[in-house]
């Protein structure tokens, strides 16, 4: 018994001293003496992982529009710059700075020249697509404010774009929020009619993060170029997933986000056209880095990660697109064939296949999310999920209130497997049936009552 309590004391002591490497030293006294030290650490490591997974299995990840896991190849490219080559890329006087700078410039060129067809001098590293959007919208509008005071955007843009426009309105600008059709696509004639002589900027996102709709960017770019208006697009969800060419599409400004393309979080980029030159008033002032448009030390490991993510995305675009389309079709076919009254929000053709937004009639979205608790899903975007209102994007495409409340967004990405998709589909079907059994609205609709004809307030 003394032996037993001593053993326990040893274990507790080792745990509390915080060093994991000492556990094998303790356990090794009692078994597995033949293993070498690294092997023992690995064995214990694997045992700890398995224990962790047995205690708390983690949900399947089906929310690729919120963020994406980092590709191991990206992490591999970043690690040396986190550990060994830690210099400031703007230090001109020593090797640490030079090697850091050369990595940053390779990322700029590797990322840029290959993926969107731009010149490396046109890429500015930022802290993410939100910062890029802020810079583009506020920067361009403020620079040209002497003669041009009108900005055009759509109602389905990301919150950072809408909020930047709201700030511009408070500064005295005129902002037009264009409505979208029921398919989620912008009406090109309406856009053309809305452009005035004092319009400085049009901002339309390439692929919507909530419903996956792909806007006709080529045509919009054509219209803007012909009218002499700058065209900004938030391509955070599109870069690396669909082929983009800034010259074919006549884009003047483009926002890129790192963590949507299997890269690190905390980095993004802004493409700013040089010919014809787009001038911006910088938001972040300081030492003049990044051509004076965004001062501050460029985080080399993150920039390298973004570059690696972009070059991997370019190589894998075809393969990923085929696979994601196949999985998305599989999911939608399975769900829609087994459950009636399911509506896919957004245009069925002009979309990125990996973002599927389904509305299940007569079922509340939050309750379905909670029922599908071992799948990580979302209803509405992550930025607006704190409020109780249904998503403004769904409202903008004209979805009924009740359908907007019962929408779920399925995100499929590079790492999704067929088993995950099948499991999600089956679980979804099962839970929707169960929730509909409990729903009085479903009963009423089964009896043939038209729910829209009911007058709910009876007193």
């Amino acid at each position, binding site marked *: 018994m003394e032996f037993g309590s001593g053993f326990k004391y040893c274990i507790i002591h080792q745990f509390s001293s915080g060093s*994991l490497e000492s556990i094998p030293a303790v356990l090794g006294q009692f078994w597995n003496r033949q293993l070498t030290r690294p092997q023992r*650490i*690995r064995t*214990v*490591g*694997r045992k*700890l*992982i398995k224990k*962790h997974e047995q205690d708390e299995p983690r949900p399947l*990840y089906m929310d690729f529009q919120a963020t994406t*896991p980092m590709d*191991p*190849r990206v*992490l*591999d490219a970043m*690690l040396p710059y986190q550990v060994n080559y830690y210099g400031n890329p703007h230090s001109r006087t020593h090797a640490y700075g030079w090697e850091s700078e050369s990595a940053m410039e390779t990322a700029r060129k590797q990322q840029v020249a290959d993926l969107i067809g731009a010149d490396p001098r046109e890429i500015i590293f930022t802290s993410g697509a939100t910062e890029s959007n802020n810079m583009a919208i506020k920067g361009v509008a403020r620079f040209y404010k002497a003669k041009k005071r009108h900005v055009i955007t759509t109602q389905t843009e990301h919150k950072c774009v809408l909020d930047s426009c709201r700030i511009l309105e408070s500064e005295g600008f005129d902002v037009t929020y264009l409505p979208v059709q029921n398919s989620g696509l912008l009406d090109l004639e309406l856009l053309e009619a809305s452009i005035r002589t004092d319009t400085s900027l049009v901002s339309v996102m390439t692929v919507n993060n909530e419903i996956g709709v792909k806007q006709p960017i080529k045509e919009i770019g054509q219209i803007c170029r012909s009218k002499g208006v700058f065209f900004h697009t938030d391509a955070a969800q599109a870069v690396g997933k669909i082929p983009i060419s800034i010259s074919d599409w006549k884009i003047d400004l483009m926002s890129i986000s790192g963590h949507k393309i299997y890269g690190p979080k905390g980095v993004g980029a802004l493409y700013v056209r040089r010919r014809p030159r787009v001038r911006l008033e910088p938001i972040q002032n300081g030492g003049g880095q990044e051509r004076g448009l965004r001062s501050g030390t460029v985080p080399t490991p993150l920039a390298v990660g973004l570059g690696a993510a972009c070059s991997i995305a370019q190589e894998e675009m075809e*393969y990923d697109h085929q696979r994601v389309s196949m999985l998305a079709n599989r999911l939608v076919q399975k769900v829609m064939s087994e459950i009636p009254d399911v509506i896919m929000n957004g245009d069925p053709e002009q979309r990125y296949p990996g973002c599927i937004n389904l509305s299940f009639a007569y079922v509340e979205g939050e309750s379905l999310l909670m029922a599908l608790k071992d799948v990580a899903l979302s209803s509405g975007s992550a930025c607006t999920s704190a409020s109780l209102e249904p998503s403004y994007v769904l409202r903008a495409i004209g979805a009924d209130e009740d359908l907007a409340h019962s929408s779920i967004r399925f995100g499929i990405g*590079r*790492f*999704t*497997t067929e088993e995950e998709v099948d499991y999600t589909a089956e679980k979804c079907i099962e839970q929707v049936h169960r929730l509909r059994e409990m729903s009085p609205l479903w009963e009423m609709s089964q009896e043939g009552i038209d729910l829209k004809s009911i007058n709910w307030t009876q007193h």
Partner: protein
Amino acid sequence: MAAAARSQVMSLYRTMLRESAKFPSYNYRNYALRRVRDAFKANRNVEDPKAVERLMEEGWQTLALIQRQGESETSQQTSLN
């Protein structure tokens, strides 16, 4: 050269699959296995020896990457609290 390389290619393929199976994370493991299989399948008819050489080189580097990442993932997951 190509004939001798066939056994090397098969050996690289088997080693890559073995190392890919060691990823602790379900998603990474399946992706690595699938991607390695599909990449070898897609390139199975490449004849030009220079291209074969280049692809083999990429394969060796990817193998080293898989080994590094599998190791670091294991050791990183232990400090998960």
